[in-house]
């Protein structure tokens, strides 16, 4: 029994026979040409997670529609021409095209391919972030964009961090609870990216990245002590940063008063709330929003688009959008649950967390639950980088889903161009350590030795 895999604690209905059978199969690798054929087929096979794809599709459609509606006035102000009202809409359409392309590519290509690309991508992102600090344009008192505002490396960083964390944790999973191998590199890696983003300054994007990384760390098997230590450290640093940045502190203070009395809230939140109020149950009708005009509501097409949805489509509209996100998140975690290997599972979980946190943050800000901060609503807010990154992430998820959906045993054999297979033994031991029974024993032993001495 002692050699049996010890997942019992985690999953009651673990299939021993299957696990043993799998290891037996692994012992006999298929012939070379068969593998190659398999590989080719997998790379281009048709297998799409319909729920996920449909949900994201609807979200994108709603987003496009709402960007068009919400950006009419800002487009007009931007171009100054009567026929310039589609300025942002066309740009968003273009971004969506790119996004779709990216999505299809990521969905089609086996995600294991990106395992090696993770590190270079990470380096590129860090370089981009440095470039932003050096050459970036200053918009709204922060340097966040490159190339005339068309690229926001912060959004790409979210994608890259998820990919990189997944690759890194998948290969270090058995050592993840070790301080030197687990906590430190993790903290340093994520910390560097987050720090660069904080310097822009963009606290909310950094927070979103940190939260996503922390969630992935938790899902990958960190123990509570590590989580508390890292979470505590993050909280402390975050608090210091909030104190450091005047704009963050003043927003927090303004929020504290707004929680008690909405009429004390900032103009941004107040006009968002006004928009929701105007909307009521069914909304004032598509395109009829008043708040989007004359800068009543700042950023109606980006950060505040949810409020415009609330105004034009009412509670029904907002509930619909939230339902779509619920399906997306539910489905995302399901993909992660069914993923064929740790890398895929962590990718799916990471992408889901990232999208979920962005959506949560955005909606919470709009409904005056959190202090105002600029986080885009995934798929819906105007913004090329955010959209492309999000669609890339979904593409990865679709790829994971596709590979797990087809139950051919060979699918689970390591792809030819990936790292060597993870040693199952050590994996088992690592997980053995994770099991609750073991932990208990250690504690009670300590107690007994104390009693003896």
């Amino acid at each position, binding site marked *: 029994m002692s050699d049996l895999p010890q997942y019992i604690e985690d*999953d009651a209905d673990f299939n021993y026979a299957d696990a043993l059978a799998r290891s037996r199969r692994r012992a006999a690798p298929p012939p070379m040409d068969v593998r190659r054929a398999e590989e080719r087929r997998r790379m281009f096979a048709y297998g799409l997670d319909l729920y996920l794809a449909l949900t994201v599709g609807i979200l994108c459609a709603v987003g496009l529609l709402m960007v068009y509606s919400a950006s009419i006035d800002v487009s007009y102000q931007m171009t100054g021409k009567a026929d310039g009202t589609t300025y942002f809409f066309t740009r968003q359409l273009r971004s969506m095209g790119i996004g779709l392309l990216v999505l299809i590519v990521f969905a089609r290509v086996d995600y294991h391919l990106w395992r090696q690309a993770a590190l270079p991508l990470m380096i590129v992102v860090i370089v981009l972030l440095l470039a932003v600090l050096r050459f970036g344009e200053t918009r709204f008192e922060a340097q966040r964009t490159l190339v005339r505002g068309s690229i926001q490396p912060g959004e790409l960083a979210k994608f890259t961090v998820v990919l990189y964390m997944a690759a890194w944790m998948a290969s270090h999973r058995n050592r993840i609870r070790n301080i030197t191998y687990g906590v430190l590199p993790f903290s340093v890696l994520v910390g560097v990216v987050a720090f660069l983003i904080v310097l822009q300054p963009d606290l909310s994007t950094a927070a979103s990245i940190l939260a996503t990384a922390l969630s992935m760390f938790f899902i990958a*098997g960190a123990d509570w002590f590590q989580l508390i230590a890292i979470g505590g450290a993050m909280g402390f640093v975050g608090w210091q940063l909030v104190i450091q940045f005047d704009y963050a502190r003043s927003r927090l203070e303004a929020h504290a008063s707004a929680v008690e009395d909405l009429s004390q809230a900032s103009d941004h939140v107040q006009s968002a709330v006004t928009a929701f109020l105007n909307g009521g149950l069914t909304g004032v009708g598509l395109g009829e929003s008043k708040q989007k005009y004359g800068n009543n509501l700042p950023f109606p097409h980006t950060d505040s688009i949810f409020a415009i949805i609330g105004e034009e489509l009412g*509670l029904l509209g907002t509930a619909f959008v939230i339902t779509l996100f619920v399906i997306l998140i539910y489905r995302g975690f399901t993909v992660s649950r*069914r*993923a064929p290997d740790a890398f895929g599972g962590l990718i799916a979980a990471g992408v889901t967390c990232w999208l979920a946190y962005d959506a949560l943050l955005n909606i919470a800000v709009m409904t005056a639950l959190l202090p105002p901060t600029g986080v885009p609503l995934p798929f819906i807010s105007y913004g090329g980088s955010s959209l492309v990154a999000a669609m890339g992430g979904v593409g990865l998820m679709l790829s994971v889903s596709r590979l797990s959906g087809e139950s051919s045993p060979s699918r689970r054999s390591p792809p030819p161009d990936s790292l060597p297979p993870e040693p199952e033994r050590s994996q088992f031991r690592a997980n053995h350590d994770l099991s609750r029974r073991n932990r208990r024993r250690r504690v009670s032993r300590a107690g007994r030795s104390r009693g003896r001495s």
Partner: protein
Amino acid sequence: MNNRHMLPFQGWRLVLSRSMVLFSLVVLVFQLGNLQFRRGEQFVEDAEENRLQLVLSAAPRGAIYDRNRVPLANNDPAYNVAIIPALLPDDPDEVLEVYNRLSALLDIPATRAIADAAGRTNEISLEELVQIGRGIAPYQPVLVAQDIPFTTFAIIQEQRQLLPGVEGQVASVRRYPTGELTAHIVGYLGPIGPEEELRLRELGYNPAFDRIGYAGIERYFEEQMAGTRGEQYWEVDVAGQLLNPVGEAQQFEPGLSVQLTIDVELQQAAQEALEAQFERMKQENNEQATAEGVVDEDYEVIEQGVVIAMDPRNGEILAMVSWPPYDNTRFARSIDADYYFRILEDPLRPLVNHAIGALYPPGSVWKLITATGVVEEDVIDPYDNLYCAGQLKLPNLYAPRDERQSQTFVCWEPNGHREVSLIEGIAQSCDVYFYQVGGGNPDVSPLTLRAGGLGVFDLYRWATAFGIGSELGGELPGELAGRMPERQWKRRTYGESWSTGDTYNAAFGQGYVTVTPLQLLSSVAAVANGGTLYQPTIVQNLQDANGTIILDFEPRVARSIVPQPGEEVVLLLQEDMLIQGPNSLVCLCEENSPYYAEDACDPGNYSRLVDIDPNPADDVTDFVRYTVNVPYNYTFNGNVCDELEYESLGRESVNNNRPEMYQPPFATAETLELIQYGMRQAVVLGTSSEQSVPWAPPLTFVETAGKTGTAEYCDDLAFAADKCKPGQWPAHAWYVEYAPYDNPQIVVLAFVYNGEEGSAVAAPVVRAFLEDYFLIMAERTRAGQE
């Protein structure tokens, strides 16, 4: 699905993450529903409020007059200039022209550039004023200049055609014609502070514009004098322009005017008398310094003092001077901050009305109260003599035979007064006599002097009956209660037991005894008028704008010390509390008392019984029904209800073989006549006679009676100046005198801080004032006859 649980993290960790995220989304849905529905109604109400604007029209504040209708406070128009941004011309050049014209008239730079060019960088230009003030409501006038001269105002009104958008406004400001002379009585107005903003807003005040009384009558009668503001709701457009009135308009009601009992002429006389005394003291000090070539380091003239004149027949205050004064005209339009902070930090505290808001040891004037108690409690036959050797040795309680350990109490006359009876004791102010009758002397036969003398408990009863320790309720804010100590108080406060020496000190108004000058004057007035302690009052009536009297302030008895036949007995709130305990008026009415009962609190119909039979053995009960005096506007926040006091003094009564109920003392008219005679003797041949004070002899054309007081003190000021040397503490000077002796119509108190000797320093003030008083009265009579 055989691969579902392949990896460890695909178990509970994923489920947990998923549930947490989804749960957060559910929370958001709830918040959304909340925003879009439940709060909707509330916001609709708020929006309605936005559409309607309440326009208040200010009510003129009531005036303050003295008893002869000389105005002490009234209203003046103030001329302001405002700019209505919406009505300015559209063309920037024309606007600049308007600014330039106005700038020439008001001497405010038109634009920033002009101000900088003229070197007036610290001033805010007209253009900036309008920019700052315009906000989102362009029809809201922006105030650019306040209180401009009338001629300038008239020019602006004339040139209205040339100054589009400029509006002249007339506002009302306070004027205090008598200024410093009556500052402590009248008080002043100030802006509404943030603490009071909410409460006053509910009462209809506009915290941005309205001012409220901060001291004196202005504060005490704030509610009555403020009047009721007119109210009218207007529909407004988004720019703030009033469109249509909505609903009924409520007209403003002018505030009530207050007519005081103060006589400005007498007030002037009192102030001059006090100032003259300060001058004399400074001069003497200088002369002494030049004559002897040495400056007396220990003595300097501290110009702080009080003069109060009261009509003993009804408690009306005719003059009340607290020195140093402050200039309330500098607060009338707006608070002069430099001046305010300067006087706020002045150690002599000019902002405090020392007549009611400061506590001092009363010194020998207090002996009148002790004497009343001594006679009434049969401590000694008033005609029996006690010997005064110039000092009295109080043996140490634990070493009664050791002379060296005894404590020495000295008389102010080091040679002693020899044989002294009560009347001589008052006239000569013999301290040793009052030590003995107050705290007893074992060397004197108990047949002559009650063992233990009057004792501190009986002294407490009598002092309390004379109003010491109670707020008497003159219509001024900030009155203090003073303190008569007793055993339990000392134990609670100092953790020490009461000693005979404490009684000695208390018997002649030193030690722990503190009073306000007004209290001391009131108690002397009660002696002078034959036993009625009137509530000191400063207000004659309240009248409306036409002069019709709305409320007449009748004389109120605060305590009947000698019960008059046919009149109901009145006790003080403090005594009522000691008698009735939890059932007393204050305990029922004070909100922070444990027995607070809103329903039972009915000051108008309050009356209780008290057993005044002094001998519990004979089973005869003699109940007297009494009422209490509740001053006008009294708010029951004086913390009179004190369980500890009630309990401890009740026990004190039991220990002294008395009925359990606290006994309020009552005097007979004969006793007070005796005291009055003692005061008369003081003027004729005692401490304030011509012999003692040759530079300020008693009035010759009228018989007067008085009592001097020299009260040693050691307060923070003296301590800081290192003057508290043992055995030679600095002293305050007191003097009280009333006239005429047989039918008193005025009683005057003078108090000079650090004046050293009552007879020498305070008596001249009182006599100078009394002389003026009779002179003024005679002149008025003559004028009336003509």
